[in-house]
């Protein structure tokens, strides 16, 4: 508790400027925490040498195989003694936050207390990019204690390693009119029914679920998760005449054309005279003024959200809500970054049975992944290797033209099963009719 502060000329530079400084925070902690004194020493060294000095290892809590990111220093003297011994161990605990990242002020204080009491550095990141509360800086000896404390408070470790990972859902239903399903419920059902895969990592590689209430995808789920659940709707966009007139009054015809009509990706919106004529099936009439209105052709609308974003409240998602499921998003290793692609164009997500179906689906995804992916192969890579169709067959989903931007443009395919496949389509059509 009395270790001398180390000179950190480089880090000090990061105390300047208006943005909140993490260095100032580190210094505050270092005042009564030797681990942080040495942490700053190592970090300052990195700033000088432009090298990192951490290596991994194996540290965990009883019964779990993941959730802790162990860090041991590699910055040692000629006798292999750590140059900054108090920070020689500087592990991170990944703690799953309440879905949607809601906190009471009390909870924040309780967490701070718990972290300090159990040997933690006092440094917490809200949040890591996967959505974990990252309790950063603890020695091996204290890890179990810290976890136990948080677990008692109702919190659990998140994922690390070849495992189901911590998930994220947008604020959604809690505060957003675009929300098309109960994001928090979906997250908790999917994650909490598969905790075994999170806590005892034995998948081929990591697997992430993310949940966004609408296609604005505030969770970046399409890119950053192996299975993205994104809200959407099947029926007509709803229009609120009062709000649309207000919007127009505050804007202009130019704005209506340039900001709304012209940006619609499928040209589904047209400007019309507001002449009282009845609109066709599938068309939403958006009154701008006594003279003009917009007509949205909902059958050609691709649910991009743009017009709803520009005219909030005046336009709202339809009432027949549900979700689109996309699979295979991930970062750059080893084939380049991928986006998730559609595997279920639409499913309802309202009743208990609907949520049960989502639960089953996520389990099938994990099972198929566990059985078919190569080591260190993400779902997106696996699909690239085996083909989307084999994946769909594996998890028992039907093909649908919404899954593609376009049908194949090459003849490199053996099609001797054409008649059977065509028959399946007609059967499904008939069944649906």
């Amino acid at each position, binding site marked *: 508790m009395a270790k001398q502060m180390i000179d950190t000329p480089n880090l000090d530079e990061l105390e300047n400027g208006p943005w909140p400084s993490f260095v100032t925070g580190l210094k505050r902690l270092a005042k009564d925490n030797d681990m942080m004194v040495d942490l700053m020493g190592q970090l300052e060294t990195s700033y000088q040498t432009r090298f990192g000095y951490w290596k991994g290892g194996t540290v965990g809590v009883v019964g779990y195989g993941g959730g802790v990111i162990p860090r041991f220093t590699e910055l040692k003297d000629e006798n292999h003694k750590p140059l900054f011994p108090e920070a020689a161990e500087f592990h991170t605990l990944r703690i799953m936050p309440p879905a949607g990242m809601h906190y009471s002020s009390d909870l924040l204080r309780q967490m701070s207390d718990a972290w300090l009491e159990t040997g933690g550095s006092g440094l917490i990141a809200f949040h890591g990019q996967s959505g974990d509360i990252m309790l950063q800086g603890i020695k091996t000896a204290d890890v179990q204690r810290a976890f136990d404390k948080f677990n008692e408070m109702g919190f659990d470790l998140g994922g690390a390693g070849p495992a189901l990972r911590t998930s994220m859902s947008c604020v959604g239903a809690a505060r957003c009119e675009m929300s098309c399903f109960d994001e928090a419920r979906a997250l908790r059902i999917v994650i909490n029914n598969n905790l075994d895969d999170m806590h005892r990592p034995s998948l081929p590689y990591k697997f992430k679920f993310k949940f966004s209430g609408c296609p604005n995808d505030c969770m970046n789920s399409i890119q950053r998760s192996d299975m993205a659940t994104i809200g*959407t709707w099947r029926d007509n966009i709803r229009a609120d005449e009062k709000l649309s007139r207000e919007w127009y009054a505050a804007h202009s015809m130019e704005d209506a054309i340039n900001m709304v009509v012209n940006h619609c990706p499928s040209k589904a919106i047209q400007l019309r005279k507001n002449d009282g004529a009845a609109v066709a099936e599938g068309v939403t009439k958006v009154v701008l003024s006594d003279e003009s209105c917009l007509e949205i052709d909902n059958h050609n609308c691709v649910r991009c959200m743009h017009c709803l974003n520009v005219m909030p409240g005046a336009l709202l998602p339809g009432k027949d809500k549900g979700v689109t499921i996309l699979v295979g998003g991930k970062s750059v290793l080893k084939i380049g970054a*991928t986006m998730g692609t559609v595997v279920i164009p639409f499913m309802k997500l309202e009743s208990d049975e609907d949520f049960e179906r989502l639960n089953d689906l996520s389990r099938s995804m994990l099972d198929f992944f566990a059985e078919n992916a190569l080591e260190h192969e993400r779902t997106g890579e696996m699909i690239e290797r085996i083909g989307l169709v084999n994946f769909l067959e594996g998890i028992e989903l039907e093909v*649908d033209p919404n899954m*593609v931007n376009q049908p194949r443009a090459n*003849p490199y395919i053996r099609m001797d099963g054409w008649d059977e496949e065509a028959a399946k389509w007609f059967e499904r059509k008939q069944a649906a009719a």
Partner: protein
Amino acid sequence: MAERTHQTIESGAPDPMPYMHPVMKDNYGKWVFHSHPKPGVLYHRAENGAEIWTVKAGTQRQMDHYTIRKLADIADQFADGYVRFTTRSNIEYMVADQTKVEPLIKALSEGGFPVGGTANSVSMIAHTQGWLHCDIPGTDASGAVKALMDELYDEFTKCEMPNRVKLSTSCCEINCGGQADIAIVIQHTMPPKINHDLVANVCERPTVVARCPVAAIRPALVNGKPSLEVDEKKCICCGACFPPCPPMQINDPVHSKFAIWVGGKNSNARSKPTFHKLVAAGIPNNPPRWPEVSEIVKKILGVYKADGRPWERMNDWIDRIGWPAFFEKTGLPFTKYHIDNWRGSRTTLNASTHIRF
């Protein structure tokens, strides 16, 4: 061979000027306007006011010399003695005098040459050799085209499509006929049947192995003779091994079927050029009139005609309405085969929530 009396002159591609209508020659590079007075007729005007009318008619491409002489005679009698052929084997008569247009049309029509193929009509089908001449065909191109053009006659002689419609037919997957609004191409569905007795004599084995796009062919000894073997699980039945090795018979009277592709476009107008995409397959190779092919082509054209907006080519129309609607409106089935699994196919998947309901 008799003794040669001629010494070859490697003259290359001939100068067109001696064969060009004088008004075109005089105004070469100086045109400023065109219009479409009626189906099958073009009007062009030059800077200096010079005018030329073009009357366009369909031919069978593979022509006997009697037909050619008939076309030449019409040129002399009703036009100014000049013609040109388009890239789609249509013949164009240019006349400097508007009054010649109608008599010319009459002569062509009476001679059995349909006048049309301009502007937003269905033009003649670009096609290939087939059983008539090629060594690897799965069907006959001239025949299939004749049968189909009989059915599309009205669409050739009228201009009632949203935009130009360019069709092609190819007698094997090599697709010499090219990318088109609607392309009709034979599609093999079974791996080649190998006549092992012949391979050693006829095929250069390393060449054949190298041709396979999926490395499904390997050298093998069969009945003690050097031959080739195909991994039938890998084989995508493309037929690329057949030209260098005819004993690897890919054509099959029953299992080589027609496939239909739509939305190919080479022009840069509006959207960038794009390839045609598979929409229908498993269509029997049914000479002499291939009715199943015509039926599907006509169905697609009918929907496009009714639903497309002016100037939308086939691909533009589908871009607007979306592929699900295309399958819906045409009644064609969507199957797992439509989902691309060739190299780079990731970019063809819908990596978005852009979905129409």
